């Protein structure tokens, strides 16, 4: 019996092994989507939620895929709890550029890597960019997760990329 099956039956030691195996990917997903300050707490939240929901894992997808999707949902829930409403970050398509340019003048005179650039984006655009370009989700999947159309996801991605390219070139 593998560790996931044992954990499903309440074996905490097996669940720790599951945690050790999957934590790095989940932590870095949280770090990229929500920033380094929130990554620790979100990672904890994801694994606590996974423990609570393990009985719902039916093995239809790989456990890694199931856990990743659950993590994305936990992180997006956090954004919404913090007041980053879907309407705000996905309806106003120009907001991405405006916010990022305004921050660039203050903060981007130092060397910057992609992570720092991503952190300049609003939550919604950051989510779409990370899910699509870093994690490999399709627009339809992102739309499903965020409750928006695939077209909205495409639009956000286009603008997020524009902003990030500008920020990275500034660094170069």
């Amino acid at each position: 019996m593998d560790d996931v099956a044992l954990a499903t039956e309440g074996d905490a030691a097996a669940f720790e092994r599951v945690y050790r195996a999957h934590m790095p990917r989940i932590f870095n997903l949280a770090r990229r989507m929500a920033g380094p300050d929130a990554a620790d707490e979100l990672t904890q939240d994801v694994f606590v939620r996974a423990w609570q929901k393990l009985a719902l894992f039916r093995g239809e997808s790989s456990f890694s895929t199931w856990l990743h999707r659950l993590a994305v949902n936990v992180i997006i829930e956090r954004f919404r709890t913090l007041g980053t409403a879907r309407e705000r970050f996905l309806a106003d398509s120009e907001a991405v550029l405006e916010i990022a340019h305004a921050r660039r003048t203050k903060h981007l005179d130092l060397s910057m890597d992609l992570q720092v650039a991503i952190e300049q984006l609003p939550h919604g655009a950051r989510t779409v960019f990370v899910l699509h370009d870093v994690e490999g989700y399709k627009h339809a999947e992102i739309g499903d997760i965020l409750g928006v159309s695939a077209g909205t996801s495409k639009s956000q991605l286009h603008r997020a990329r524009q902003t990030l390219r500008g920020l990275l070139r500034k660094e170069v």
Partner: protein
Amino acid sequence: MTDQGQFGERDHEPLGADDILSQAIEQCRDEMPAQDLWPAVSARLEIKSAPRRSQISLTLPQLALAASLLMAVASGLTWLASRQPLAPAEAQPMVVAQGESAGEVEGGIVNANFADAQFNAAVIDLEQILRDERDRLDPRTVLVIERNLKTIDLAIQEARMALNDDPANAYLNSHLADARRRKLDLLRHATTLASAGGN
């Protein structure tokens, strides 16, 4: 040329290899938390463990009740069956207990000795597990389990003795199969309980 013009309307598809974003993503380094997060996660998991223990503890009175009922019913019916064998016209079709379908069939009656080897092997395995794990159980729980096992063993023994005198008795065969199933069920419950470390 602006970024808008350079990348155009199709800038929502997978990135090209020469795109500065592709190169940046490839160079993106994974990091690890500054501290081990497991203790904090583990502390929050304990909330879920409590209901599991309480669910297990509820099985003890059920076990005691089931064994008491079995003792009363088994003793009474075995006594009746050994003294008042059913008339041929009243004989009921044999019901074979689940998991004991490999029995020897003689004229529509399943002999009481069927699947003895399977039954004994399963009992030996489960009793061994229980012996290995019994230290994880509360002594009172062990007492209840042992008392119930003795009760069931007595019922099995009585049924077998009665069958020596009346091997074709349909009721006795059914009763023996039922008692065996109950013993296996009780052993399975007990070993599950012990493996969970609950009391």
